């Protein structure tokens, strides 16, 4: 079936929903395609908060927020983007409040704020209360509030439509073609639909499922990134992947940084607050890459806890019942349900967990997808949210800044697309453009014999976790590059066991595995080529940051013989790179 809109939004997380809202309010005919019901998007899992220098609790300025973002990202952040982020955070948070988001309140009725890792006053002096929050379900409330407002604005949703390809007019996206629409697979009955549009937004979220221990949802398989990559668009800074320090031991479910923001501490087997050794000033509220590394070092030095000495404790007991139950109810429940641990009386076993892709589809400040180091835009194609890389997170994202990113750049995407749609004409889509993907899907669905995709996926996740994790060395990453290439080859022979058309999740999971492999390939190759340590990319063999050679963004292009890399300069406006100490 063929359906036309002026604008298409792929993904209904925070970024996609806000973009859709702007478009619908401007009267642009918009379709939102999402493989999950919108409220199932992973934005709903975000707990801790969303930072904006409101100054409701103590003095704060967006310049401070900008500085923290740049420094937190180990100076790989594009500073013009960080400025937009920190500045517009304020109005977007206020606008969210106007849309109905139930923020926690200060006694005088303003939005309450709390501390979060890496957010400081006066350019690094001391922690500042900047994170606006709704208990520890901030992301849930953002997702619900945006969805509610989309309903109010009459946004047209295509729920459970899995986008399987992007369409371009006049050449591939990477060679000057213009976005023309998408092909989507309706999960309910396996029908392929071709959607035409002037503007397409990719807001498909992250790709954390390429790791075995992750806080990410099963659905986070890097679809948007991989699809862009397949059409000649590079992926930027893929080597920078954040491991969050406090995942539930063995499972990876996240215990929000809010626990530390409220005063929770980290303890090793000797009961010592080991962060004193690594970040004497910021302690537990140092940026995530540092805390994750500190945990790994403690474990490596034999101060881990448990039979395998491979975890440490997060301790919130001293915060008291009131704080724990009022401000951290969800994460308290996670510990109870998933570990059988009572945080009121026991410390909680934690380990770092794969959490967030700093890299992604490169865009400019106007959320337009760009395809080279000169920032040449791909006409009609936009990206926002975790799938995109503007780059506001650089080498390491600060807590809460992802939600800010979704809001600020989701909103920008909506406005930008509105303007674009008003000026542009509907591109032509040739008949039967969906035939190639139809053939791919049919081949996958009907292949009579081959390997199981679930086993292959486990292999990929273990490979990446072991070799492209918190600590990296050249041999490890070489093993990853080779391993991914092998898995990619095996993937051509996977066999789906469900051959039906109705709700065939087996088929879609196999398809998603293909996306993960693409992302893993870009990640491993980008990582091995960056011979320095910066932010989340931490190498034993190159422990120092190298601003001479690597103050640059990686762009990974897909190629038959593996990805090829190019580099793009970092935009520096206000803050010259300095050593990063906390």
């Amino acid at each position, binding site marked *: 079936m063929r359906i036309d809109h002026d604008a298409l939004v792929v993904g209904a997380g925070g970024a996609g929903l806000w973009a859709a809202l702007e478009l619908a309010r401007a009267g642009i005919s918009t379709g939102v395609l999402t493989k999950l019901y919108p409220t199932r998007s992973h934005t709903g899992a975000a707990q801790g908060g969303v930072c904006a220098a409101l100054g409701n609790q103590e003095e704060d300025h967006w310049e401070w927020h900008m500085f923290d973002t740049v420094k937190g990202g180990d100076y790989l952040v594009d500073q013009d983007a960080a400025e937009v982020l920190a500045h517009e955070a304020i109005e977007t948070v206020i606008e969210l409040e106007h849309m109905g988001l139930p923020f926690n309140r200060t006694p005088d009725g303003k939005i309450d704020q709390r501390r979060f890792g890496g957010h400081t006053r006066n350019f690094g002096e001391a922690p500042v209360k900047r994170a606006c929050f709704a208990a520890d379900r901030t992301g849930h409330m953002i997702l619900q509030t945006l969805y509610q407002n989309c309903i109010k604005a009459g946004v047209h949703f295509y729920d459970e439509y899995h986008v399987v390809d992007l369409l371009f007019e006049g050449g591939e996206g990477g060679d000057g073609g213009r976005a023309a629409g998408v092909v989507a697979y309706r999960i309910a009955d396996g029908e392929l639909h071709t959607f035409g549009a002037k503007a397409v937004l990719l807001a498909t979220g992250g790709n954390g499922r390429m790791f075995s221990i992750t806080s990410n949802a099963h659905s986070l398989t890097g679809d948007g990134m991989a699809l862009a990559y397949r059409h000649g668009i590079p992926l930027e800074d893929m080597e920078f992947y954040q491991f969050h320090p406090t995942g539930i031991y063995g499972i990876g479910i996240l215990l929000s940084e809010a626990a530390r923001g409220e005063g929770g501490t980290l303890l090793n087997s000797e009961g010592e607050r080991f962060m004193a050794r690594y970040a004497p000033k910021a302690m537990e509220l140092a940026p995530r890459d540092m805390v994750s590394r500190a945990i790994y070092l403690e474990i490596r030095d034999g101060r881990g806890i448990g039979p395998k000495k491979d975890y440490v404790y997060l301790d919130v007991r001293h915060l008291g019942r009131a704080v724990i139950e009022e401000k951290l109810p969800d994460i308290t429940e996670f510990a109870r349900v998933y570990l059988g641990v009572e945080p009121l009386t026991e410390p909680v076993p934690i380990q770092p967990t794969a959490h967030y892709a700093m890299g992604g589809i490169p865009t400019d400040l106007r959320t337009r997808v760009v395809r080279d180091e000169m920032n040449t835009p791909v006409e009609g194609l936009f990206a926002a949210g975790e799938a995109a890389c503007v780059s506001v997170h650089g080498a390491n994202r600060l807590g809460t800044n992802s939600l800010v990113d979704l809001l600020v750049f989701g909103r920008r995407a909506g406005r930008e697309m509105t303007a674009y749609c008003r000026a542009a004409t509907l591109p032509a889509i040739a008949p039967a453009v969906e035939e190639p993907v139809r053939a791919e899907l049919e081949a996958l669905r009907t292949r009579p014999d081959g390997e199981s995709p679930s086993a292959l996926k486990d292999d990929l996740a273990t490979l990446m976790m072991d070799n492209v994790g918190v600590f990296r060395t050249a041999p490890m990453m070489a093993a990853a590059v080779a391993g991914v290439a092998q898995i990619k080859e095996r993937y051509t022979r996977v066999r789906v066991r469900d051959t039906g058309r109705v709700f065939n999740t*087996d088929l879609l999971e196999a398809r998603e595995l293909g996306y993960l492999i693409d992302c893993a390939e870009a990640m491993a190759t980008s990582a091995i080529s960056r011979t320095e340590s910066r932010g989340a990319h931490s190498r034993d063999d190159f422990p120092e940051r190298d601003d001479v050679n690597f103050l640059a963004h990686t762009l990974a292009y897909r190629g038959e013989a593996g990805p090829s890399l190019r580099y793009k300069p970092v935009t520096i406006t206000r803050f010259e790179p300095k050593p990063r100490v906390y």
Partner: protein
Amino acid sequence: MQVDLRILRFDPERDAAPHWESYRVDAEPMDRVLNLLISVKADQDGTLTFRRSCAHGICGSDAMLINGRNRLACKIRVDQLGRKITVAPLTGLPVMKDLVVDMDGFLAKYRSVMPFLIADTPPPERERRQSPADRARYDDTTKCILCAACTTACPSFWAQPSYVGPAAIVNAHRFIFDTRDDAGDERLEILADKDGVWRCRTIFNCVDACPRGINITRAILEVSRAVVERTV
């Protein structure tokens, strides 16, 4: 340990009617039913179909009938259920395949209560003020993840699927008692309809089923009381 897992299967392309299938699965006591389903799908029968995403009780994808009660598969542990576990799709919504039900009707009811803030006054420069106490008034009902466990556990809904259902009322409550909202009256009117709050018979299955621990019945009764108060 080994678990006997019985699943009510239905493939519309093959089966005339749903039927039970049994599987033996290795499990740890701390495993959740979702782990078992994933392991069956990976190792025994790739056609087993269910929704899942977050795997930690926050997205609302995998509500299903587990050992006779509506639970999120990713939130109920094997040690809470024992060695015999039966899993069936939610009751009262059309089954699309295996454990997947059609949520459209459910969401249409959610939309019918105008689940969004309607404020008549133009927004101020900064945030609208709200005291912590006013904020607390509707805190409980902001937790809903639209998993449908409550509505499909409600005998009143089974009897009359036209009942707007606990989930929709919960979401109306969240706005009716929000001091920033001005359309409470209109929502109360909608819920004063014959398929509105009156269909609740205080059965509490919804409360037991709610994975977010929302006191749904309380919310419903608060709405009923508000309807009564504005009329009587």
